């Protein structure tokens, strides 16, 4: 519902970032070839893993976790959110007060709930059921809700990506494990109990994945657009530009129009800006904007006979209505994903379970839901690895020992021993995952179509490589 509340202005910018961030992944972590799903003591998880502590725990990150039962029940006292029957997890995000109307709270809740339902049906974890409490921060009250969570002591962990996560730092300070998204990367940098789906992201860093769609479409002159009012949007533009500055030359690609100063809401339209791009001969556009603004730009492009110019869309993956309603405008546009697309071969990954669970619940399978599922999975693996006498610190330590977790084949391998810190523009290697991976789909006839190999849908690059090369198609599914 349209809120009259405060700075949509600045907040929206953040939202723009939200979507753009969803695409931004520089983190990806794993060893060499990325196919690391060597099942250790996978199928039957029992107390042995827990007893081994961190060493055994590290394996759980990458293990294929089977049907269960998972873990072992032992009575625990004094751990927030944990009773003999249940483990309570809070989703702290923004609901209807989000004036753009983007689905944040509901979609994130759907993803987590689907995962919990799945695991609960398998017997839960350590003899307990996972319970999700949905908390709406109503946009302005995030810090307050966080304070209530800390005071209440009724939640073990917090998952969620709200518009303004002002309380997340308080939560992590209080020892509560927090699972957010790339939007909260700045906050998560260096914080060892705050997790994001694919490791902490560096927004301003050049990223090899940005070159790929331009090459794929045969374009050579790139325009980059962002909002002036949001630092996040400007950072996004800077990162994009850096990518083309660093690697574009040898590929014959150049950023010819860079505008990180668009006014939020585009009140004056984008006529002059699109005209300028036309004059510069732009044939591909990268955006650090929100979904609705992109629509405005697409309309203006079509108005000025540039309708064929492809864009990289802020993530509307899974938003069927958006894609079908605007099919003409979005034809040929790319969407980048940090996880394995649904259009790829799902066998050997948890994608099958994800689709099954979400379809059964009637939930829309979109970007936020999938990300939230991944977050839930990371938490689950941490619980499993921590053993029956778990607490918040033990879970955090366990996850931090994972060197190659893929959340059941959904993502490339993340190394939490290194990736709480983001890479920096000067050092793209030390905190990078072993392989920096990304997937692309393209909008065709209002539907997402997979780019690349259905069996090896991830495009992976070696962070240590100075130059840009064609990516290696990779799969992180279990063999």
């Amino acid at each position, binding site marked *: *519902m*349209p*809120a*009259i*509340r*405060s*700075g*949509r*202005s*600045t*907040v929206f910018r*953040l939202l723009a970032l939200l979507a753009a961030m969803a695409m931004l992944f520089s983190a990806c972590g794993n060893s060499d070839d990325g196919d690391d799903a060597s099942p250790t003591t996978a199928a039957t998880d029992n107390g042995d893993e827990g007893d081994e502590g961190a060493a055994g725990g590290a394996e759980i990150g990458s293990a294929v976790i089977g049907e269960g039962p998972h873990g072992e029940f032992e009575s625990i006292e004094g751990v927030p959110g944990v009773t003999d029957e249940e483990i309570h997890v809070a989703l702290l995000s923004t609901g*209807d*007060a989000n*004036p*753009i*109307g*983007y*689905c944040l709270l509901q979609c994130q809740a759907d993803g987590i709930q689907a995962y919990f339902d799945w695991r609960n049906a398998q017997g839960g974890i350590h003899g307990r059921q996972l319970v999700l409490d949905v908390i709406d921060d109503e*946009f*302005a*009250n995030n*810090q*307050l809700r966080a*304070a*209530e969570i*800390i*005071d209440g002591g009724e939640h073990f962990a917090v998952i969620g990506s709200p518009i*303004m996560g*002002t309380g997340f*730092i308080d939560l992590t300070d209080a020892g509560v494990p927090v699972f957010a998204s790339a939007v909260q990367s*700045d906050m998560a940098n260096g914080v060892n109990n705050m997790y994001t789906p694919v490791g902490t992201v560096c927004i301003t860093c050049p990223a090899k994945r940005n070159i790929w769609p331009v090459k794929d479409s045969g374009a050579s002159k790139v325009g980059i657009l962002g909002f*002036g*009012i*949001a*630092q*996040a949007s400007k950072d996004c533009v800077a990162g994009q530009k850096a990518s083309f500055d660093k690697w574009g030359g040898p590929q014959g690609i150049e950023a010819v129009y860079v*505008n990180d*100063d668009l*006014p939020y*809401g*585009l*009140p*004056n*339209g984008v*006529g*002059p*800006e699109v*005209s*300028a791009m036309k004059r510069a001969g732009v044939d591909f556009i990268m955006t650090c904007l*929100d*979904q*609705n*603004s992109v*629509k405005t730009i697409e309309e203006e492009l079509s*108005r*000025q006979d540039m309708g064929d110019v492809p864009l990289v869309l802020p993530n*509307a993956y899974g*938003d069927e*209505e958006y894609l079908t309603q605007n099919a003409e405008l979005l034809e040929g546009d790319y969407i980048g994903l940090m996880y394995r697309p649904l259009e790829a071969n799902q066998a050997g990954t948890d994608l099958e379970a994800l689709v099954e669970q979400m379809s059964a619940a009637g939930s829309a399978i979109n970007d936020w839901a999938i990300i939230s599922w991944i977050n839930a999975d990371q938490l689950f693996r941490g619980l499993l690895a921590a053993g029956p006498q778990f607490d918040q610190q033990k879970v955090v330590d366990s996850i931090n020992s994972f060197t190659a977790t893929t959340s059941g084949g959904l993502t490339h391998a993340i190394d939490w021993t290194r990736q709480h810190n983001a890479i920096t523009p000067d050092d793209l290697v030390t905190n990078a995952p072993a392989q920096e991976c990304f997937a692309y789909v393209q909008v065709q006839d209002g539907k997402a179509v997979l780019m690349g190999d259905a069996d090896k849908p991830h495009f992976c690059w070696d962070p240590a490589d100075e130059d840009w090369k064609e990516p290696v198609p990779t799969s992180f599914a279990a063999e």
Partner: protein
Amino acid sequence: MILAVSVVTDFFQAVLQGVPPGTVYALVAIGFVLTYKTSGVFNFAFGAQAFASMVLFHKAADEWGWGTVPAAILSVLIFAPLLGFLLEWAVFRHLRTAPPLSTLVVSLGLTVAIPSLVTILLDFSPKSGSSPHGVVPDGRTVRYDPFGVYPFSRDELVATIVAIVAVLGLAALFRFTPVGLMMKAVVESPRMTELNGISADRVSAGAWALSSFFAGLAGVLIAPRFTTFSANEYFNIMVIAIAAAAVGKLVSLPWAFGGGLGLGVVIALVSTFLPRWTDEFAWLKPVQENVLPSIPFVVLFGVIVFVPGLRKAIGSSDPLAGVDPPRQNVASVITSAGWMFLALKAVLLLGAVAVVYTQADRTWTLLVTQAVAMGIIFLSITIITGLAGQISLCQGAFAAIGAFAVYQLGEVRGMSVLVAVVIGGAIAAAVAAALSLTLRQLTGIWVAIATLAFAFFFDAVLVKQSWIGGDSLARSRIPRPVIGTIDFQDDSNFLLLAVIVLAVCALGVYLFSRGTTGRKLRALGGSEIAARSVGISPSRARVAAFALSGFLAAVGGGMLVIGQGSVNYGTSFVPFLALFWLIVVVTFGVRQPSGAIVAAAFFILFESVFLKGEIFGWILRGEDNIPSFFPLAPDWRYILFGLGTIQYARHPEGVLAMSAAKRRARSERRAADKVVVDSAAELGTPA
């Protein structure tokens, strides 16, 4: 040769590109001028009325499955004028003799309340990713290119045509029919109009219906230009429209139209050519980054300050104003608070603080600390509006200056945060003083508008500068101060510190209002002419008041962000919120410090205590006993306070003092009645 031709084509193209957004500004500007001409009210809520019609249109067209045309008829031809009638009958009819500042506050209240009310009543929650559409079928996709240079969509063409027809039609209405004449007469003096046998109420109702109809029309026509269904967009547009309307001195429809179109075209031209010049002259880059977003506000500011005839445009006085009972003598209410009363309030406050300090958990401590910081900010409103009688709509910017100063100096540069707070206060005081000096020739409403322009300028241009707001949004982690051995990392300790700061500030306000400047300001408030005649310089007194008000707001803003640990401009200091602050403070009493403190408490705690129904939990002993219609939507906060401004207009002393005033009035009436009896007895029966 080719170059020259291409520049000309580009120029023409840019002009055409400026027409669609310019039409939007023109439509709203026309509507605004129309309201002002026909009702004498400076109606900020015009945008909110437009929003209301837009919401109803989309609800009917998208959700109830009505066709576009029936939905348009409902929302524009039926609902919009009805809303106008309602506003006139319930609100503005009773404010005809209220001072213009009161009416302004009421229109601000409506700006806040109407969108919330409409949203709740219509249960409006737009689907994710859907965006507003226009009234004509295929409005976005079908295009026309009359000049072969730049195509216009159907929506845009319709909007432009309607704007042109409206200007011509309204101009004709005013020139050739008695309607315009009657409306102008009512605006000047409703009673004198009545003496001519014309029902002022009927004319006034008709005027509101006409301008509200136009609001509905504008609302529906401009919707497609926005990407979201946001009431905030409609408010932001208002500010730009006022700039356009100001070009016509607020009373000329053609100039408002031209001003709106002109703004759109100028912005498009600048967007087209400035980047090219920047390519050649790199030093223009900061200009480019900052000029564009600031154009409307700079125009507005410039028009207000430099166009000489503008200030007189706000109405001639009504010779029959004396017919209404004189307003309560408010000045006396301030001094009535004796020492004992003050001491009692102080004791209560300390008691409350003690309870919170010892008993409260983190959540409540956080809340109360926020309330205390807001109290300091609200004290700034007490000074500038309560004491100096000016409406300042940029208190949010001043508070933000304090907040950013703490961030830049305290976090980024590692200075002691308390020192940073003081420095922030000084900076804000300087800015406020400079602003006040620029505005010293202006009367009340124009000061309000100019401060609003400044607030938006700050929001659009200054916040994003790296040396002001910069990175603060994502990364800030503001440290708590340490004094000697006391570490204020502990939330309860910091709360105490905040209370001490609040007390010092409240004492300062009290002393200031009793001091020379305070008394000068009160004299000015009573009669400016009389005050001048005894040598009181209004600008000096007002500059002092502005500076103090800026200082207080910044201190409050600084304390707020230290308490929260990070700067959240978007949820704490944006222009719209600052509007709402004013409304809350005037509801509780803008003339005494206690009003500000109570207002802050309500502002922060309202949601937790009332909207969530917790107070019922306390009363009924148990969370489970809270009635099921709680928690109420946060929108209710806006509705209640927004509508509360109507009460303010009738009782500018505010809720707190109102009861005292009522008691006084009652006793005076009793005394007057006694006189009646006595004098009748004296004179014997009248001849």
